[in-house]
């Protein structure tokens, strides 16, 4: 369809970055979400207000932070608060527009697993665990997830619900007392998924250039619903790519 002058990770990150609107407050997870948020703040969203769970509010790092506690975050933040304060006064109080998360596994209803693959008491793979994700997924006004697409990652039912997406379907978030809207978009290296407005089941609404719907279905561990006319993701612009590459280049140094 087009000569790929960018990688699938790059279009994933750029597309995720575009999901962040200028002026939003964004609770940023480390890794892919942090990269995408930093691309956004350097392109269309200069007033994106980034919060990291280490307590740095309004950070504007001049390179990619290597962890949620990177010193560059404290040096460039509007203010640094304690960890209880960022979770209680900011996240729990419902002040954050968007929570930006990664995941090891996600299921049909956008529930997220970052705890174990396999049985909890006898896991095949022990993952890092919850971190801030359960409450980010619960309390941010909306959640955006960025992760690579594969049948092992996109499963019918996650092995462990670390963070609740849309539970088992409509009404579950309300029943559980979760104040935010939950995952509104999942951006992968193949395309974009959004929950169906009625059933809350994740639905393919966009595919990246060079990707066919069949590719996405093949990389998804359940019978993936597809929107009537999935949108073709606009290609990354030269400006977006150059920002992204300078950031990841920096991070690799």
């Amino acid at each position: 369809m087009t000569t790929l002058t960018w990688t699938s990770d790059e279009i994933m990150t750029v597309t995720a970055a575009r999901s962040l609107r200028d002026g939003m407050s964004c609770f940023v997870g480390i890794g892919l979400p942090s990269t995408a948020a930093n691309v956004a703040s350097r392109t269309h969203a200069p007033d994106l207000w980034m919060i990291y769970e280490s307590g740095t509010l309004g950070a504007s790092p001049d390179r990619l932070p290597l962890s949620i506690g990177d010193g560059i975050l404290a040096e460039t933040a509007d203010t640094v608060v304690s960890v209880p304060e960022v979770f209680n006064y900011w996240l729990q109080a419902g002040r954050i527009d968007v929570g930006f998360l990664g995941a090891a596994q996600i299921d049909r209803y956008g529930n997220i697993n970052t705890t174990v693959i396999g049985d909890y008491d006898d896991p095949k793979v022990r993952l890092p665990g919850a971190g801030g994700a359960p409450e980010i997924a619960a309390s941010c006004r909306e959640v955006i997830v960025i992760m690579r697409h594969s049948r092992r990652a996109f499963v019918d039912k996650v092995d462990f619900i670390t963070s609740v997406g849309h539970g088992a379907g409509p009404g579950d978030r309300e029943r559980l007392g979760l104040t935010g809207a939950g995952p509104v978009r999942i951006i992968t290296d193949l395309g974009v998924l959004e929950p169906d407005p009625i059933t809350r089941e994740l639905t393919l609404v966009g595919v990246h250039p060079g990707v066919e719907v069949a590719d996405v279905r093949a990389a998804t561990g359940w019978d993936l619903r597809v929107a009537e006319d999935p949108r073709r993701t606009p290609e990354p612009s030269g400006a977006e790519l150059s920002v992204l590459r300078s950031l990841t280049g920096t991070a690799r140094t």
Partner: protein
Amino acid sequence: MAVPLNEAVGQLVHDGDTVALEGFTHLIPVAAGHEIIRQGLRDLTLVRMTPDIVYDQLIGAGCARKLVFSWGGNPGVGSLHRFRDAVTRSWPVPLEIEEHSHAGMANRYVAGASGLPFAVLRGYSGTDLVGNNPHIKTITCPFTGQELAAVPALNPDVTIIHAQRADTAGNVQLWGITGIQKEAAMAADRVLVTVEEVVEELEPVPGQVVLPARVVDAVSVVPGGAAPSYAHGYYERDNSAYKDWDAVGRDREAFGAWLAELTGSTGPDTSSTSDPEPVGKGA
């Protein structure tokens, strides 16, 4: 007030204790963790929101019987392989785990620091953490009827943190990302602080947290004591050390060599000479 690190660990940390070595990427008390390994402490319940490579080392060295945590990993690199080996294959000893979210752990420390038996938060609801952790309960608001999560206070026997400075009276000053250190320290029965330096008087610094001497049991001067993590204003994070750990941690033999070097090069005599009370200490 400053005492050598081996004496401080010898006096304050005992086999079977619940020990929190806190830090949020910044100011990780690595040197103190290594001293615990050198002194061969056993059956510890290790507590930390973000256990990283020094916890991987403590676990690999067999110091811990339980880990209480909310996110375990090598930040920016990947997994903790000694932790995985202990959880999935009980090597070198079985490791019990108690898992929370960050919000839960942070509020547990706050309750501990506040002299309350529990904390209330909006959290955990609908997650599988609830079913796998009996310490997460629900509580009903007596005014609105809303259901919320309750978690028990966390009161370590010992909390160990690293800070930039202390004064000669034992007041401790840290700044930059200060994370959960104040709450972790104030929740503990005993507090050990390693510092970059002791100064006559603490010059106030924006963003500082000051821990009054009254809540600090021992200060040990250990320049570089947070390396390979960083100490804001003193030294940068050694990112290559975190990457290099991955290969060591992956392999029991490589880890064994690392452990032999840690305990051998400094010499077991160092700790036993200056730690005259072997009571309650492991081999």
